[in-house]
Protein backbone atom coordinates (compact mmCIF):
# COMPACT_ATOMS: atom_id res chain seq x y z
CA UNK A 1 0.00 0.00 0.00
CA UNK A 2 1.26 3.44 -0.78
CA UNK A 3 0.00 6.94 -0.20
CA UNK A 4 -0.04 10.09 -2.23
CA UNK A 5 0.36 13.59 -0.85
CA UNK A 6 -0.62 16.49 -3.06
CA UNK A 7 0.64 19.83 -1.80
CA UNK A 8 -0.46 23.30 -2.82
CA UNK A 9 1.37 26.51 -2.01
CA UNK A 10 0.84 30.18 -2.91
CA UNK A 11 3.06 31.46 -5.70
CA UNK A 12 3.13 34.94 -4.27
CA UNK A 13 2.67 36.26 -0.75
CA UNK A 14 0.38 34.14 1.39
CA UNK A 15 -1.57 36.85 3.22
CA UNK A 16 -2.88 34.45 5.85
CA UNK A 17 0.61 33.22 6.64
CA UNK A 18 2.05 36.73 6.74
CA UNK A 19 -0.74 37.99 9.01
CA UNK A 20 -0.30 35.02 11.35
CA UNK A 21 3.46 35.61 11.50
CA UNK A 22 2.90 39.29 12.24
CA UNK A 23 0.47 38.45 15.06
CA UNK A 24 2.89 35.92 16.56
CA UNK A 25 5.79 38.35 16.46
CA UNK A 26 4.07 41.65 17.21
CA UNK A 27 1.14 40.76 19.46
CA UNK A 28 2.05 37.47 21.12
CA UNK A 29 5.65 38.03 22.13
CA UNK A 30 7.34 35.53 19.83
CA UNK A 31 9.37 38.14 17.94
CA UNK A 32 12.68 36.66 19.12
CA UNK A 33 11.50 33.10 18.50
CA UNK A 34 9.72 32.76 15.17
CA UNK A 35 11.81 33.52 12.09
CA UNK A 36 9.39 32.46 9.38
CA UNK A 37 6.04 30.79 8.94
CA UNK A 38 4.76 28.96 5.90
CA UNK A 39 1.37 27.50 5.07
CA UNK A 40 0.61 24.72 2.58
CA UNK A 41 -2.59 22.85 1.78
CA UNK A 42 -2.21 19.09 1.73
CA UNK A 43 -4.49 16.48 0.21
CA UNK A 44 -3.39 13.07 1.43
CA UNK A 45 -4.80 10.03 -0.35
CA UNK A 46 -4.53 6.56 1.14
CA UNK A 47 -6.33 3.25 0.92
CA UNK A 48 -7.06 0.42 -1.38
CA UNK A 49 -6.17 1.19 -4.94
CA UNK A 50 -3.99 4.23 -4.27
CA UNK A 51 -0.67 4.02 -5.98
CA UNK A 52 1.89 6.72 -5.82
CA UNK A 53 2.15 6.99 -9.55
CA UNK A 54 1.53 9.36 -12.38
CA UNK A 55 -2.15 8.34 -12.84
CA UNK A 56 -3.00 9.42 -9.33
CA UNK A 57 -0.91 12.55 -9.60
CA UNK A 58 -2.72 13.46 -12.82
CA UNK A 59 -6.07 12.83 -11.13
CA UNK A 60 -5.08 15.26 -8.40
CA UNK A 61 -4.17 17.83 -11.04
CA UNK A 62 -7.60 17.37 -12.62
CA UNK A 63 -9.34 18.41 -9.38
CA UNK A 64 -9.35 21.99 -10.56
CA UNK A 65 -10.95 23.37 -7.42
CA UNK A 66 -7.94 22.37 -5.32
CA UNK A 67 -5.74 25.06 -6.78
CA UNK A 68 -5.46 27.82 -9.31
CA UNK A 69 -2.37 27.33 -11.48
CA UNK A 70 -2.06 31.09 -11.85
CA UNK A 71 -1.90 31.58 -8.07
CA UNK A 72 -0.54 28.35 -6.69
CA UNK A 73 2.32 25.95 -7.02
CA UNK A 74 1.76 22.25 -6.57
CA UNK A 75 3.64 19.02 -6.14
CA UNK A 76 2.64 15.38 -5.79
CA UNK A 77 4.66 13.10 -3.53
CA UNK A 78 4.81 9.45 -2.75
CA UNK A 79 4.25 9.40 0.99
CA UNK A 80 4.52 6.88 3.77
CA UNK A 81 1.06 5.58 4.67
CA UNK A 82 -0.37 6.20 8.11
CA UNK A 83 -1.44 9.84 8.01
CA UNK A 84 -5.14 8.98 7.87
CA UNK A 85 -4.79 6.56 10.78
CA UNK A 86 -2.97 9.28 12.71
CA UNK A 87 -5.80 11.71 12.03
CA UNK A 88 -8.43 9.14 12.95
CA UNK A 89 -6.97 7.57 16.06
CA UNK A 90 -4.17 9.78 17.24
CA UNK A 91 -1.48 7.34 16.12
CA UNK A 92 1.95 8.76 15.36
CA UNK A 93 2.36 10.50 12.03
CA UNK A 94 4.55 8.41 9.68
CA UNK A 95 8.18 9.55 9.58
CA UNK A 96 9.79 10.16 7.26
CA UNK A 97 6.59 11.14 5.58
CA UNK A 98 7.24 12.54 2.08
CA UNK A 99 9.41 10.04 0.28
CA UNK A 100 9.63 10.83 -3.41
CA UNK A 101 8.58 13.63 -5.70
CA UNK A 102 6.29 12.34 -8.44
CA UNK A 103 5.21 15.47 -10.26
CA UNK A 104 5.27 19.22 -9.89
CA UNK A 105 4.38 22.41 -11.72
CA UNK A 106 7.98 22.57 -12.95
CA UNK A 107 8.39 19.43 -15.07
CA UNK A 108 10.88 21.42 -17.12
CA UNK A 109 13.37 21.27 -14.30
CA UNK A 110 16.15 18.77 -14.61
CA UNK A 111 15.99 15.75 -12.35
CA UNK A 112 18.64 17.12 -10.05
CA UNK A 113 16.88 20.44 -9.76
CA UNK A 114 13.62 18.69 -9.03
CA UNK A 115 15.34 17.25 -6.01
CA UNK A 116 15.20 20.76 -4.66
CA UNK A 117 11.45 20.54 -4.64
CA UNK A 118 11.69 17.73 -2.10
CA UNK A 119 12.22 20.56 0.30
CA UNK A 120 8.64 21.61 -0.21
CA UNK A 121 8.12 21.50 3.52
CA UNK A 122 11.48 23.04 4.10
CA UNK A 123 11.67 26.04 1.88
CA UNK A 124 13.60 28.05 4.43
CA UNK A 125 17.23 27.10 4.81
CA UNK A 126 18.39 26.80 8.39
CA UNK A 127 21.31 29.16 8.75
CA UNK A 128 22.30 29.16 12.41
CA UNK A 129 22.90 26.45 14.97
CA UNK A 130 19.90 27.44 17.08
CA UNK A 131 17.46 27.38 14.15
CA UNK A 132 14.93 24.58 13.85
CA UNK A 133 12.13 23.80 11.50
CA UNK A 134 8.89 22.22 12.70
CA UNK A 135 5.83 21.34 10.62
CA UNK A 136 2.38 20.77 12.06
CA UNK A 137 -0.55 19.36 10.14
CA UNK A 138 -4.03 20.54 11.15
CA UNK A 139 -7.33 19.23 9.90
CA UNK A 140 -11.01 19.81 10.52
CA UNK A 141 -12.11 17.25 13.12
CA UNK A 142 -15.48 16.81 11.44
CA UNK A 143 -14.69 17.10 7.75
CA UNK A 144 -10.97 16.60 7.41
CA UNK A 145 -11.28 12.90 6.68
CA UNK A 146 -13.51 12.21 3.72
CA UNK A 147 -14.17 10.05 0.72
CA UNK A 148 -12.65 11.21 -2.51
CA UNK A 149 -14.53 14.17 -3.94
CA UNK A 150 -16.36 14.01 -7.23
CA UNK A 151 -13.96 13.67 -10.12
CA UNK A 152 -12.05 11.19 -12.17
CA UNK A 153 -10.01 8.81 -10.02
CA UNK A 154 -8.24 5.55 -10.85
CA UNK A 155 -10.11 4.03 -7.92
CA UNK A 156 -12.97 5.29 -5.78
CA UNK A 157 -12.08 3.19 -2.75
CA UNK A 158 -9.47 5.51 -1.33
CA UNK A 159 -10.01 8.05 1.41
CA UNK A 160 -8.62 11.51 1.75
CA UNK A 161 -7.35 13.77 4.51
CA UNK A 162 -7.42 17.47 3.77
CA UNK A 163 -4.96 19.22 6.02
CA UNK A 164 -3.15 22.48 6.39
CA UNK A 165 0.58 22.37 6.97
CA UNK A 166 2.14 25.08 9.12
CA UNK A 167 5.92 25.14 8.91
CA UNK A 168 7.77 27.39 11.32
CA UNK A 169 11.46 28.17 11.41
CA UNK A 170 12.31 29.20 14.93
CA UNK A 171 15.09 29.65 17.44
CA UNK A 172 15.22 27.03 20.15
CA UNK A 173 17.70 25.23 22.39
CA UNK A 174 17.10 21.86 20.77
CA UNK A 175 14.53 19.98 18.74
CA UNK A 176 12.35 19.08 21.72
CA UNK A 177 12.33 22.71 22.81
CA UNK A 178 11.44 23.74 19.25
CA UNK A 179 8.49 21.32 19.14
CA UNK A 180 7.27 22.56 22.52
CA UNK A 181 7.49 26.18 21.41
CA UNK A 182 5.60 25.49 18.20
CA UNK A 183 2.83 23.76 20.09
CA UNK A 184 2.67 26.74 22.44
CA UNK A 185 2.21 29.32 19.72
CA UNK A 186 0.17 27.11 17.42
CA UNK A 187 -2.49 25.56 19.66
CA UNK A 188 -5.18 28.05 20.65
CA UNK A 189 -5.59 26.93 24.23
CA UNK A 190 -5.76 30.45 25.60
CA UNK A 191 -5.81 34.02 24.39
CA UNK A 192 -2.19 34.53 25.36
CA UNK A 193 -0.85 31.42 23.66
CA UNK A 194 -1.76 29.71 20.46
CA UNK A 195 -3.10 31.05 17.19
CA UNK A 196 -2.90 28.67 14.29
CA UNK A 197 -4.94 25.62 15.34
CA UNK A 198 -8.19 25.57 17.31
CA UNK A 199 -8.23 22.33 19.35
CA UNK A 200 -12.02 22.36 19.74
CA UNK A 201 -12.42 22.28 15.96
CA UNK A 202 -9.19 20.88 14.58
CA UNK A 203 -7.00 17.83 15.01
CA UNK A 204 -3.27 18.19 14.64
CA UNK A 205 0.02 16.32 14.54
CA UNK A 206 3.69 17.15 14.31
CA UNK A 207 4.74 15.85 10.91
CA UNK A 208 8.32 17.02 10.71
CA UNK A 209 11.05 18.49 12.91
CA UNK A 210 14.54 19.35 11.73
CA UNK A 211 17.60 20.91 13.29
CA UNK A 212 20.50 22.44 11.42
CA UNK A 213 22.98 19.75 10.56
Amino acid at each position, binding site marked *: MSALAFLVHHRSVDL*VGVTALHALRSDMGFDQVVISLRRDDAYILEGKGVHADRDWADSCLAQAHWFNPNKHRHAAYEAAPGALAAAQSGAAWPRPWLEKLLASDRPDLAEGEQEGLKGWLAAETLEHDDEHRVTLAAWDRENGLAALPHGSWPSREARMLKAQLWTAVLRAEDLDHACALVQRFALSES*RQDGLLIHPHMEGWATVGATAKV
Partner: protein
Amino acid sequence: MSRAQVAVLQFPGLNCETESLRVLERVGVDAALVRWNEPASRLTEFAGFFIPGGWSYQDRVRAGAIASKSALMDALTREVEKGKPALGICNGAQILVESGLVPGRETGRIEMGLAHNAIPGREGYFSRWVFVNAGERASSFFTENIREPIALPVAHAEGRFLTRDVALAATYADPSDRPLYYCDAEGAPADRWPLLPNGSLHGLAGVSGMDGQVLAFMPHPERSAWLWQVPEDLPGPWGERRRAAAADHRKLEQAGPGMELLRAFGKLNTRGAS
Protein backbone atom coordinates in the same frame (compact mmCIF):
# COMPACT_ATOMS: atom_id res chain seq x y z
CA MET B 1 -27.99 62.41 34.77
CA SER B 2 -24.79 62.03 32.78
CA ARG B 3 -24.78 59.59 29.91
CA ALA B 4 -22.52 56.59 30.12
CA GLN B 5 -19.70 56.25 27.58
CA VAL B 6 -19.71 53.07 25.51
CA ALA B 7 -16.88 52.18 23.14
CA VAL B 8 -17.49 50.54 19.79
CA LEU B 9 -14.27 48.70 19.01
CA GLN B 10 -13.18 48.63 15.43
CA PHE B 11 -10.68 46.24 13.96
CA PRO B 12 -9.77 46.36 10.27
CA GLY B 13 -12.51 44.57 8.36
CA LEU B 14 -15.37 45.12 10.79
CA ASN B 15 -18.18 46.80 8.89
CA CYS B 16 -21.14 47.36 11.23
CA GLU B 17 -19.70 50.20 13.31
CA THR B 18 -21.96 52.98 11.98
CA GLU B 19 -25.25 51.26 12.76
CA SER B 20 -23.82 50.08 16.09
CA LEU B 21 -23.00 53.65 17.09
CA ARG B 22 -26.48 54.70 16.00
CA VAL B 23 -28.33 52.11 18.13
CA LEU B 24 -26.22 52.91 21.17
CA GLU B 25 -27.15 56.57 20.85
CA ARG B 26 -30.76 55.42 20.59
CA VAL B 27 -30.60 53.57 23.91
CA GLY B 28 -29.34 56.74 25.57
CA VAL B 29 -25.60 56.30 25.99
CA ASP B 30 -22.75 58.20 24.38
CA ALA B 31 -20.98 55.96 21.93
CA ALA B 32 -17.53 56.46 20.46
CA LEU B 33 -15.45 54.51 18.00
CA VAL B 34 -12.12 53.17 19.26
CA ARG B 35 -9.88 51.88 16.48
CA TRP B 36 -7.39 49.06 16.80
CA ASN B 37 -4.44 51.40 16.32
CA GLU B 38 -5.37 53.85 19.05
CA PRO B 39 -3.79 53.57 22.50
CA ALA B 40 -5.50 50.61 24.17
CA SER B 41 -5.36 52.47 27.48
CA ARG B 42 -8.19 54.62 26.14
CA LEU B 43 -10.63 51.85 27.07
CA THR B 44 -10.41 52.84 30.73
CA GLU B 45 -12.54 55.88 29.80
CA PHE B 46 -15.56 53.72 28.98
CA ALA B 47 -18.27 52.04 31.01
CA GLY B 48 -19.18 49.40 28.42
CA PHE B 49 -18.02 47.91 25.15
CA PHE B 50 -19.52 46.80 21.85
CA ILE B 51 -17.64 44.78 19.23
CA PRO B 52 -19.61 44.87 15.99
CA GLY B 53 -19.77 42.41 13.13
CA GLY B 54 -17.84 42.13 9.90
CA TRP B 55 -14.66 40.33 8.90
CA SER B 56 -11.85 41.42 11.16
CA TYR B 57 -8.52 40.88 9.44
CA GLN B 58 -10.39 39.24 6.57
CA ASP B 59 -11.04 36.21 8.83
CA ARG B 60 -7.41 35.22 8.25
CA VAL B 61 -6.38 32.05 10.10
CA ARG B 62 -9.87 31.86 11.65
CA ALA B 63 -12.76 34.24 12.23
CA GLY B 64 -11.83 36.50 15.15
CA ALA B 65 -8.48 34.84 15.81
CA ILE B 66 -6.11 37.66 14.86
CA ALA B 67 -8.13 40.41 16.57
CA SER B 68 -8.28 38.37 19.77
CA LYS B 69 -4.50 38.66 20.15
CA SER B 70 -4.45 42.45 19.91
CA ALA B 71 -3.47 44.94 22.61
CA LEU B 72 -7.02 46.26 22.45
CA MET B 73 -8.35 42.89 23.60
CA ASP B 74 -5.76 42.84 26.39
CA ALA B 75 -7.18 46.13 27.56
CA LEU B 76 -10.78 44.98 27.12
CA THR B 77 -10.06 41.91 29.25
CA ARG B 78 -8.77 44.13 32.05
CA GLU B 79 -11.89 46.31 31.82
CA VAL B 80 -14.42 43.47 31.89
CA GLU B 81 -12.57 42.00 34.86
CA LYS B 82 -13.60 45.21 36.63
CA GLY B 83 -17.23 44.27 35.95
CA LYS B 84 -17.82 46.37 32.85
CA PRO B 85 -20.15 44.80 30.25
CA ALA B 86 -19.09 43.85 26.72
CA LEU B 87 -21.25 42.70 23.82
CA GLY B 88 -19.84 41.05 20.70
CA ILE B 89 -22.07 40.66 17.67
CA CYS B 90 -21.29 38.14 14.92
CA ASN B 91 -17.58 38.66 14.22
CA GLY B 92 -17.48 40.47 17.56
CA ALA B 93 -18.81 37.27 19.13
CA GLN B 94 -16.12 35.26 17.38
CA ILE B 95 -13.48 37.64 18.77
CA LEU B 96 -14.84 37.23 22.31
CA VAL B 97 -14.84 33.43 22.02
CA GLU B 98 -11.29 33.45 20.64
CA SER B 99 -10.32 35.74 23.52
CA GLY B 100 -11.55 33.28 26.13
CA LEU B 101 -13.99 35.81 27.62
CA VAL B 102 -16.94 33.52 26.96
CA PRO B 103 -17.88 31.21 28.49
CA GLY B 104 -14.99 32.50 30.58
CA ARG B 105 -15.03 29.91 33.35
CA GLU B 106 -11.29 30.56 33.42
CA THR B 107 -10.58 33.99 31.97
CA GLY B 108 -8.51 33.79 28.83
CA ARG B 109 -8.85 30.03 28.36
CA ILE B 110 -10.43 29.14 25.02
CA GLU B 111 -13.23 26.75 25.90
CA MET B 112 -15.42 26.95 22.80
CA GLY B 113 -15.20 27.55 19.10
CA LEU B 114 -17.46 28.97 16.43
CA ALA B 115 -17.32 26.47 13.61
CA HIS B 116 -18.61 26.66 10.07
CA ASN B 117 -22.37 26.38 9.72
CA ALA B 118 -23.85 22.90 9.50
CA ILE B 119 -26.77 23.20 7.10
CA PRO B 120 -28.28 20.28 5.17
CA GLY B 121 -27.22 20.36 1.53
CA ARG B 122 -25.28 23.58 1.61
CA GLU B 123 -22.27 25.22 3.14
CA GLY B 124 -20.85 28.66 3.66
CA TYR B 125 -22.43 32.02 4.38
CA PHE B 126 -26.09 32.02 5.33
CA SER B 127 -28.46 34.88 6.07
CA ARG B 128 -32.09 34.85 7.24
CA TRP B 129 -34.35 36.17 9.97
CA VAL B 130 -34.49 33.94 13.02
CA PHE B 131 -36.11 33.91 16.44
CA VAL B 132 -34.13 33.87 19.65
CA ASN B 133 -35.20 33.37 23.25
CA ALA B 134 -33.39 33.75 26.56
CA GLY B 135 -33.17 31.01 29.18
CA GLU B 136 -34.72 32.08 32.49
CA ARG B 137 -31.95 30.63 34.64
CA ALA B 138 -29.23 32.13 32.43
CA SER B 139 -30.45 35.70 32.80
CA SER B 140 -27.62 38.18 32.46
CA PHE B 141 -26.86 41.86 32.03
CA PHE B 142 -27.90 41.79 28.38
CA THR B 143 -30.78 39.32 28.45
CA GLU B 144 -32.81 40.21 31.52
CA ASN B 145 -35.15 42.42 29.44
CA ILE B 146 -35.99 39.63 27.03
CA ARG B 147 -39.43 38.32 27.99
CA GLU B 148 -40.55 36.92 24.65
CA PRO B 149 -38.82 35.62 21.50
CA ILE B 150 -37.08 38.36 19.59
CA ALA B 151 -36.68 38.35 15.81
CA LEU B 152 -33.46 39.39 14.14
CA PRO B 153 -31.25 38.43 11.22
CA VAL B 154 -28.26 36.11 11.19
CA ALA B 155 -25.60 36.59 8.54
CA HIS B 156 -22.56 34.41 8.98
CA ALA B 157 -20.59 31.41 7.78
CA GLU B 158 -19.09 30.40 11.14
CA GLY B 159 -21.77 30.66 13.79
CA ARG B 160 -21.96 27.16 15.24
CA PHE B 161 -20.96 27.15 18.91
CA LEU B 162 -19.19 23.93 19.81
CA THR B 163 -16.87 22.58 22.46
CA ARG B 164 -14.98 19.37 23.13
CA ASP B 165 -15.59 19.91 26.84
CA VAL B 166 -18.45 17.50 27.55
CA ALA B 167 -19.12 18.97 30.99
CA LEU B 168 -19.35 22.47 29.57
CA ALA B 169 -21.68 21.33 26.79
CA ALA B 170 -23.93 19.67 29.36
CA THR B 171 -24.46 22.97 31.16
CA TYR B 172 -26.50 24.15 28.15
CA ALA B 173 -28.63 21.01 27.80
CA ASP B 174 -31.68 22.59 29.45
CA PRO B 175 -33.09 25.55 27.51
CA SER B 176 -33.51 27.44 30.78
CA ASP B 177 -29.73 27.44 31.16
CA ARG B 178 -28.99 28.75 27.67
CA PRO B 179 -28.16 32.45 27.61
CA LEU B 180 -29.75 32.83 24.16
CA TYR B 181 -31.04 30.09 21.89
CA TYR B 182 -32.71 29.80 18.51
CA CYS B 183 -36.43 29.08 18.70
CA ASP B 184 -39.64 29.31 16.71
CA ALA B 185 -41.91 32.36 16.72
CA GLU B 186 -43.61 31.09 19.88
CA GLY B 187 -40.38 30.43 21.74
CA ALA B 188 -40.04 26.64 21.46
CA PRO B 189 -36.35 25.67 21.12
CA ALA B 190 -35.28 25.05 17.52
CA ASP B 191 -33.46 21.83 16.82
CA ARG B 192 -33.15 21.87 13.04
CA TRP B 193 -32.66 24.07 10.05
CA PRO B 194 -34.00 26.58 9.09
CA LEU B 195 -35.12 27.73 12.56
CA LEU B 196 -31.71 26.62 13.77
CA PRO B 197 -29.61 28.32 11.09
CA ASN B 198 -26.19 26.83 11.74
CA GLY B 199 -26.39 23.57 13.74
CA SER B 200 -25.13 25.26 16.91
CA LEU B 201 -24.63 23.18 20.06
CA HIS B 202 -27.98 22.97 21.89
CA GLY B 203 -29.24 25.68 19.55
CA LEU B 204 -27.07 28.32 21.20
CA ALA B 205 -27.31 31.74 19.56
CA GLY B 206 -25.36 33.49 22.29
CA VAL B 207 -23.07 32.53 25.13
CA SER B 208 -22.30 34.71 28.11
CA GLY B 209 -19.32 34.85 30.42
CA MET B 210 -17.80 36.79 33.31
CA ASP B 211 -20.96 36.43 35.42
CA GLY B 212 -23.15 37.46 32.51
CA GLN B 213 -21.35 40.75 31.90
CA VAL B 214 -19.96 39.56 28.55
CA LEU B 215 -22.14 38.22 25.76
CA ALA B 216 -21.09 36.71 22.44
CA PHE B 217 -24.15 36.77 20.17
CA MET B 218 -24.26 35.69 16.53
CA PRO B 219 -27.49 37.39 15.24
CA HIS B 220 -27.55 41.13 14.59
CA PRO B 221 -29.74 43.13 17.04
CA GLU B 222 -28.55 46.40 15.49
CA ARG B 223 -30.31 45.30 12.29
CA SER B 224 -33.65 44.89 14.07
CA ALA B 225 -33.48 47.81 16.46
CA TRP B 226 -36.30 49.75 14.79
CA LEU B 227 -39.69 48.37 13.82
CA TRP B 228 -39.18 49.50 10.22
CA GLN B 229 -36.30 47.00 9.96
CA VAL B 230 -38.62 44.04 10.64
CA PRO B 231 -39.91 42.26 7.50
CA GLU B 232 -43.65 42.53 6.99
CA ASP B 233 -44.05 38.81 6.38
CA LEU B 234 -42.42 37.77 9.64
CA PRO B 235 -44.60 35.37 11.70
CA GLY B 236 -45.29 35.92 15.39
CA PRO B 237 -45.94 39.02 17.51
CA TRP B 238 -43.14 41.11 16.00
CA GLY B 239 -44.47 40.50 12.51
CA GLU B 240 -47.94 41.52 13.71
CA ARG B 241 -46.55 44.74 15.19
CA ARG B 242 -44.73 45.49 11.95
CA ARG B 243 -47.85 44.91 9.85
CA ALA B 244 -49.97 46.99 12.25
CA ALA B 245 -47.52 49.86 11.85
CA ALA B 246 -48.02 49.63 8.09
CA ALA B 247 -46.85 52.94 6.64
CA ASP B 248 -47.23 54.97 9.84
CA HIS B 249 -43.77 56.47 10.12
CA ARG B 250 -44.08 57.31 13.81
CA LYS B 251 -44.92 53.72 14.65
CA LEU B 252 -42.21 52.42 12.37
CA GLU B 253 -39.67 54.44 14.36
CA GLN B 254 -40.61 52.51 17.52
CA ALA B 255 -38.17 50.06 19.04
CA GLY B 256 -37.73 46.80 17.20
CA PRO B 257 -37.00 43.40 18.73
CA GLY B 258 -33.23 43.85 18.75
CA MET B 259 -33.64 46.78 21.12
CA GLU B 260 -34.80 44.35 23.84
CA LEU B 261 -31.18 43.25 24.09
CA LEU B 262 -29.42 46.50 23.28
CA ARG B 263 -31.30 48.63 25.80
CA ALA B 264 -29.26 46.90 28.51
CA PHE B 265 -26.54 49.44 27.78
CA GLY B 266 -28.92 52.14 29.01
CA LYS B 267 -28.61 50.69 32.51
CA LEU B 268 -25.05 52.00 32.58
CA ASN B 269 -26.45 55.53 32.94
CA THR B 270 -27.65 54.69 36.45
CA ARG B 271 -24.60 52.63 37.37
CA GLY B 272 -22.29 55.60 37.55
CA ALA B 273 -20.65 55.90 34.20
CA SER B 274 -16.94 55.37 33.59
